């Protein structure tokens, strides 16, 4: 598996170089437009400093920012012991040295993501809807997928690539906006002016529009591949593809939108949290591979749960042979067997029951206290409740807290 991580790193470096070249070119072209004499180099320096600055910010507080945007709350084991157990189980299966920090997002839409700069400081966030809708095996599949992102160093890659993409978008936005507001007048009021200058400006605008799109397509292409790879790794950890497959099925049936997600964070989640509105863009701009395809591949795995079996199933479903798993990764492990479901057959909750459990869980995350009255009512006490006594709203008995 070290081979696999190394192969991933090599690919990442290629991506970073390409994005770096786009960044430098963008800086150079814009710089030349602003100060035709020696502006090109200045532009490169400015573009580079923007990137360095953003990298520093992301290194020290990138995941904190992402978690805060997503309204994720760090929780203690007693809020949801099963979640903690499942995360620890998968941490053990992966052999990672540290337990990731665990966050819950109070949202009904089931989803999850992992973030962090390295495996030592990683975090996993799941929505409370996920915890309510999935059974233990399915939850294990999803958590294993997130641990796989940490294990394959995807979180690191996504953060760095995301920052580069962000810098490119930022620089081109600043340039394009200043062009619009100044009408481009400021830039050719000086020396020669004329036709050559106008052509140069047109090229610059063209480039500033195109660069972010190119970088984005590159980023999406790699991110889609990483999703497949994380699925394969997840299966290797749990030895039970059906768990993840049936979890993805439940996630795809969800109709509520995750309101805390936006275009920037959408790529981190296990399934796309944003519902498609109106016209559908081409597959090139999707951050995620289609869920139905991922499910089909998982259900088509036969003869074992190693990487090579996943690759075979992938080839069968997709009908092409683009390698998801580097050849060195395929060879590393021999045959790995399936395991049986460990789950005790449990009756699924009804919708009403689920709603109640979800409500209780959301309150627990917000550190509400629960108090069971003798009449059977569960009294929910908010964290800022100041009195020493509480009266049961149904039977009127007074309880000391």
């Amino acid at each position, binding site marked *: 598996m070290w081979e696999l991580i190394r192969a991933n790193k090599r690919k990442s470096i290629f991506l970073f170089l390409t994005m770096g070249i786009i960044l430098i070119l963008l800086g150079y072209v814009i710089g030349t437009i602003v100060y035709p004499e020696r502006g090109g180099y200045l532009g490169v320096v400015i573009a580079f400093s923007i990137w360095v600055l953003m990298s520093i910010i992301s290194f020290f507080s990138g995941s904190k920012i992402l978690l805060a945007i997503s309204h994720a709350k760090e929780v203690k084991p007693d809020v949801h012991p099963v979640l903690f157990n*499942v995360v620890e*189980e998968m941490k053990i*299966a992966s*052999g990672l040295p540290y337990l990731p920090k665990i966050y819950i997002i109070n949202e009904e839409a089931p989803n999850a993501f992992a973030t962090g700069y390295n495996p030592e400081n990683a975090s996993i966030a799941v929505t409370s809807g996920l915890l309510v809708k999935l059974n233990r095996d399915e939850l294990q599949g999803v958590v294993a997928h997130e641990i796989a992102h940490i294990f394959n160093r995807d979180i690191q890659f996504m953060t760095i690539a995301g920052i580069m993409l962000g810098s490119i978008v930022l620089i081109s936005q600043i340039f394009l906006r200043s062009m619009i507001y100044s009408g481009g007048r400021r830039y050719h009021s000086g020396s020669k002016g004329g036709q050559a200058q106008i052509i140069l400006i047109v090229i610059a605008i063209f480039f500033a529009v195109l660069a972010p799109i190119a970088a984005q397509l590159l980023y999406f292409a790699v991110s889609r591949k990483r999703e497949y790879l994380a699925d394969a790794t997840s299966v290797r950890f749990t*030895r039970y593809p059906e768990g993840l497959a049936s979890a993805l099925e439940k996630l795809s049936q969800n109709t509520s939108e995750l309101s805390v997600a936006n275009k920037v964070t959408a790529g981190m989640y296990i399934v796309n949290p944003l519902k498609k509105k109106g016209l559908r863009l081409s597959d090139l701009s999707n951050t995620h591979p289609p869920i139905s395809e991922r499910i089909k591949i998982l259900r088509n795995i036969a003869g074992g749960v190693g990487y090579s079996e996943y690759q075979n199933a992938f080839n069968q479903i997709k009908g092409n042979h683009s390698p998801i798993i580097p050849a060195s990764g395929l060879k590393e492990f021999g045959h790995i067997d399936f395991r049986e479901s460990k789950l005790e057959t449990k009756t699924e909750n009804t919708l009403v029951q689920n709603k109640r459990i979800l409500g209780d869980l959301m309150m627990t995350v917000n550190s509400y206290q629960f108090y069971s009255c003798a009449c059977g009512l569960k009294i929910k006490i908010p964290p800022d409740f100041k009195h020493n006594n509480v009266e049961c709203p149904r039977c009127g008995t007074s309880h000391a807290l």
Partner: protein
Amino acid sequence: MMSALIILVIGLLLVIVLIGMYNSLIRLRNAVQNAWSQIDVQLKRRHDLIPNLIESVKGYMVHEKSVLENITKYRSAALEANNIGDISKAESALTGALGQLKIAMENYPDLKANQNFLALQEELSSTENKISFSRQNYNDQVMLYNNKIQMFPSNIIASMFNFKSSEFFEIEDNTEREVPKVSFN
């Protein structure tokens, strides 16, 4: 002069490659040892949970005395075992006995309504999972390590520095696969 330089460069490269192989062997061996200690941690945790479990079910499960006694017996056998073979034998017997207890619990609805007991049961079944996942990880690491030791060219370094292949943590499934006896009367 030129040829001497070439020989020097080739020699230097060879040394670097050999050092790399040696280091990766060390890294893999440490990973195996670390994975083993992970299993150990989880087994200890299970041993610690068992007295609590027996204590909380004893009152309810008066008819399952033999199952409870077996669990206690295998637990102390596991505590005394001290090589990989004995440990895996005792631990798989313990896993089997706990499995029987789990099946027997189905007959005691009072037990399943007890919140403390349910929490304890989640703790125990998660520990079972952790044991099997740490065993899985250990075996993965052993496979990587053993492959490296046996395959060319790293096998040369391995035999030079006396790296020995590790034992897999096998589980005897006889007890686990045993079909529980169900009687309808």
